[in-house]
């Protein structure tokens, strides 16, 4: 699996006004710093530090993450749907790369 691959899962069908659960998995090493005797010996700063999700352009979910989030992070968040549309998610990492994915919610 390559870094930055985004996989999303949404319910197949939704009803107006329903709160649906969106599951997102992104492939990313989320490197940690290595310590020996309390001192950092290896400084790895490549990790996802910002996540944004929108539904039909409206912001629904945002996260500021640190190295304390696991490798290949999983995020599960709710979206209230009033109309069919597209959930768009964007990940930003500390190297300035962005990864995005989208999923369609049908009625």
């Amino acid at each position, binding site marked *: 699996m390559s870094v930055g691959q985004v996989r999303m899962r949404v319910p197949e069908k939704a009803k107006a006004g329903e709160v649906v659960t969106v599951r997102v998995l992104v492939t990313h090493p989320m490197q940690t710093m290595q310590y020996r005797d309390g001192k950092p010996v290896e400084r790895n700063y490549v990790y996802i530090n910002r996540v944004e999700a929108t539904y039909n352009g409206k912001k629904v979910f945002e996260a500021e993450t*640190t190295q304390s989030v696991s490798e290949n992070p999983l995020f599960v968040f709710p979206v209230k749907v009033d109309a069919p549309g597209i959930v768009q998610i964007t990940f930003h990492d500390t190297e300035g790369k962005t990864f995005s994915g989208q999923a369609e919610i049908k009625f």
Partner: protein
Amino acid sequence: MDSRPEAFGTARRHALRHLAALAAVAGATSLALPAAAQQAGMPQPDEKVEDTLKRLFGGRPMQPGGDRLKLEAPMIAENGAVVPIRIESDLPMTADNYVRNVYIIADKNRRPLNAKFTLTPDAGRASIATNVRLASTSDLRVVAETSTGALYEVKREVKVTVGGCGG
């Protein structure tokens, strides 16, 4: 020098070699520091959990989560690198009173703030799940901040068999 026993000389050489190695390591560390500081996306410096709470909430009173905010986490996490947690809440999500921020704080991690989630009323319900890393057995706190400024806290101890933050 020549009159000294051979064993003494060897010991001295070894000692000198060790000293030289130590000096090299110390030099490398002090050189690495400024370079690291220039990199983008630097993590927060190490801090104690009390300082994190003070920085984020400034000593505002917190209400116990009770039935309104729940944290599901394993009692024993065999692998600290992947600890699945789930936050469920039935706090209102209306336009004028909603859960704005959810903080995940692990007391004994070097940087206790694991993640901060921001929601909007369009989320409909404040329930989030993710995987976090835990360095060692400690309390895991979840703090929900509503748009009116109220804070709800829920705390659970998670036992960690193998720490997940490296070295």
